[in-house]
């Protein structure tokens, strides 16, 4: 009996623990509660305001962004910013859960997937703050437009990227190969590759990137087609078939590795890159990842423009503003949030700290300041970016639900590579997938 009583006491304590924890706020900070007070009043500039901001990145980006927040808080002592930062693993899962749970951060870093959030009404229209809190005076027009949809401004770009053909300069010189010529056509490149593999001793000229979504879009754009235009799919089966056939030729000629050797090496980051392992000479990489690739290897890298097409209607290249800072529709303090965005993209001290980590900044003034900074690779990237910007044609809107399409393009490309489907059949799959992605967004 005595023990039974003891048992009961233990249970009661347990329950009290639960109840106490339920009723109290568990000692967490007041960021949420304080931001909800006084929400209906107009915010005078002296009122204390706290904002939450969320971004993904790695060590360098976290360090820099935290410094910028500190600077901002010094300049605006009444605004307190609580940062929530993490790697890109799980970032969008957490964000979606927070939005679905009615607890979104005020400021969110989004990628080119931001239209997915616009169509689900999660983002605030920033137009009222543009020209007021947020200055876009020094911004390139295309960079501003990239953050706008349906005549509303939803995001301000934190940096732009461009695709580049990255080559292993050391390996090229060792093999006694000539440097890449400017304005090479696809045919020139193939010829160069065929020559290269004879001198490369078992290595390959290019990585197989037939499944790389934006590479295919580059190819389509040269024919003045694209994934998505005027709210519809703007390419057809024949276009994709040509693309797959070209890669089949490369494979047959032995200038790209077999699918089996490359299926798990997507070249999307240094850990899955044959370029980094020194097994291929060239591979297509986004400009913001180039320094990551360089710092993962000893050989020196160079960057060159992508091949042109003989019958090309326009340059396939485009400047891609990536990584947008957006404000949640639920934010109680959009004005202050807008002030922070402005600080991030225009303040010279802040932008110097942030550097090119999120891509090349959209403000010309900032770009001019930064262009002399950084490592050798950073300078190479800047130089390449300027060259690319000179040739690039205007960008197209990203295909909606591109994540899902990406997986299906990957499957289609692999099924050609592994001889499971003909290029015509695979091309049909790609068009079907694109149409489904567009249909889903409506």
């Amino acid at each position: 009996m005595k023990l039974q009583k003891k048992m009961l006491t233990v249970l009661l304590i347990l329950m009290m623990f639960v109840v106490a924890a339920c009723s109290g706020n568990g000692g967490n900070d007041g960021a949420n509660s304080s931001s909800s007070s006084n929400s209906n009043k107009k915010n005078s500039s002296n009122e204390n305001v706290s904002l939450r901001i969320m971004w993904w990145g790695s060590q360098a980006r976290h360090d820099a962004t935290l410094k910028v927040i500190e600077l901002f808080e010094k300049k605006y002592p009444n605004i307190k910013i609580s940062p929530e930062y993490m790697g890109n693993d799980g970032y969008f899962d957490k964000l979606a859960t927070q939005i679905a749970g009615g607890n979104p951060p005020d400021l969110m870093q989004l990628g080119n997937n931001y239209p997915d959030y616009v169509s689900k009404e999660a983002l605030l229209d920033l137009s009222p703050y543009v020209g007021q809190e947020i200055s876009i005076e020094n911004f390139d027009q295309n960079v501003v437009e990239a953050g706008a949809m349906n005549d509303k401004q939803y995001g301000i770009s934190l940096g732009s990227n461009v695709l580049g053909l990255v080559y292993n300069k050391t390996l090229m010189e060792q093999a006694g190969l000539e440097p890449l010529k400017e304005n090479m056509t696809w045919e020139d490149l193939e010829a160069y590759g065929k020559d290269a593999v004879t001198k490369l001793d078992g290595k390959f000229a290019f990585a197989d990137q037939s499944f790389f979504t934006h590479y295919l879009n580059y190819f389509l754009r040269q024919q003045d087609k694209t994934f998505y235009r005027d709210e519809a799919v703007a390419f057809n089966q024949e276009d994709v078939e040509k693309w797959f056939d070209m890669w089949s030729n490369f494979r047959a000629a032995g200038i790209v590795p077999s699918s089996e050797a490359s299926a798990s090496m997507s070249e999307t980051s240094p850990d899955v890159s044959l370029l980094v392992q020194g097994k291929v000479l060239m591979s297509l990489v986004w400009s913001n990842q180039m320094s990551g690739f360089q710092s993962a290897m000893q050989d020196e890298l160079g960057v060159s423009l992508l091949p042109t097409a003989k019958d090309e209607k326009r340059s396939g290249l485009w400047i891609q503003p990536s990584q947008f800072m957006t404000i949640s529709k639920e934010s109680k303090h959009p004005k202050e949030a807008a002030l922070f965005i402005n600080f991030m993209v225009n303040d010279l001290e802040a932008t110097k700290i942030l550097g090119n980590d999120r891509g090349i900044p959209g403000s010309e003034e900032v770009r001019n300041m930064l262009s002399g900074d950084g490592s050798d690779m950073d300078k190479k990237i800047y130089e390449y970016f300027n060259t690319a910007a000179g040739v690039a044609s205007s960008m197209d809107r990203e295909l909606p639900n591109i994540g899902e399409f990406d997986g299906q393009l990957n499957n289609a490309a692999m099924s050609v590579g592994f001889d499971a489907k003909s290029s015509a059949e695979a091309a049909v799959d790609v068009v079907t997938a694109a149409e489904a992605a567009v249909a889903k967004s409506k």
Partner: protein
Amino acid sequence: MNQIVAKQKNRTGHHDRSGIHPIVKWWKRNSTAYLFLLPWFLGFFALTLIPMISSLYLSFTDFNLLTPSNWVGLDNYDKMFNHDPRYLKSLQVTFLYVFSSVPLKLGFALLVAMLMNKGIKGLGIYRTIYYIPTLLGGSVAISVLWRKMFGGGGVINSFLLDTFGIHAPDWVSNPKYALSSLVALSVWQFGSSMIIFLAGLKQIPQDYYEASQIDGAGKFRQFLNITIPTLSPVVLFNVIMQMISSFQAFTPAFIVSGGKGGPLDSTMFYTLYLYLKGFSFFEMGYASAMAWVLLVIIGIFTALIFASSKRWVTYGDGGE
């Protein structure tokens, strides 16, 4: 079992007459057990049940995570079986995985547990070494590692080539073999099952063996007549839990394939597809429907194993 209850009734003797309220009677009979179960009841009703029921409700909607959902009836279920080849592929991949990895992993775990149980010097260190892969769990390093082990020029292939002169395929990149490399990963992380077997072996009273030795039984007879029957509740546990967790396997495919289930959907596990649908493609309603179908599948298999257990599991308490 009834004795406990009877004893309690005796202790509180004077209440135990006919004519008292049935609820009181019920409580008298069950109070001890229900008090022991109180934490579980609190957890079940307050924390587990509500999210489960919400997900069941969501499975009949087009919930896209961010905007309010609409009722769509059985559409999600219909789409799953009639209009989604990738779903069927994921089902197939998962069944293959479950039926190959569970027996292999448990067989290996039991074998090693028996070896590790006694009689070898340096056992502590061996045991720790064999447990290390399990400690690595879902570490980010696994993906890089697995390509190093099973990739084209990886450790396994170099070994096969140098020792036997066999040119083996790339186990990770080839859609025909990618799944088998994940089965290997699962077997390689057999440590948890091994620990449970070890704990079970340790619980067998030593005098059982002593007694049978006196009767002149050999090692193999001992294994059949003592080890297997006394260990059978633990075997049942491992079989059911491995089955459930293999049906829900997510991390290995997510990490090794970079979250894509490739190449060619050959490692597109059920829950990986469910996760992609729910979080990456914004179809949480559909994902919820998938989850409930999986629950039914797992439930059927669990029930079948339990039904069969009456034939091969013996408990120390004599129950079934």
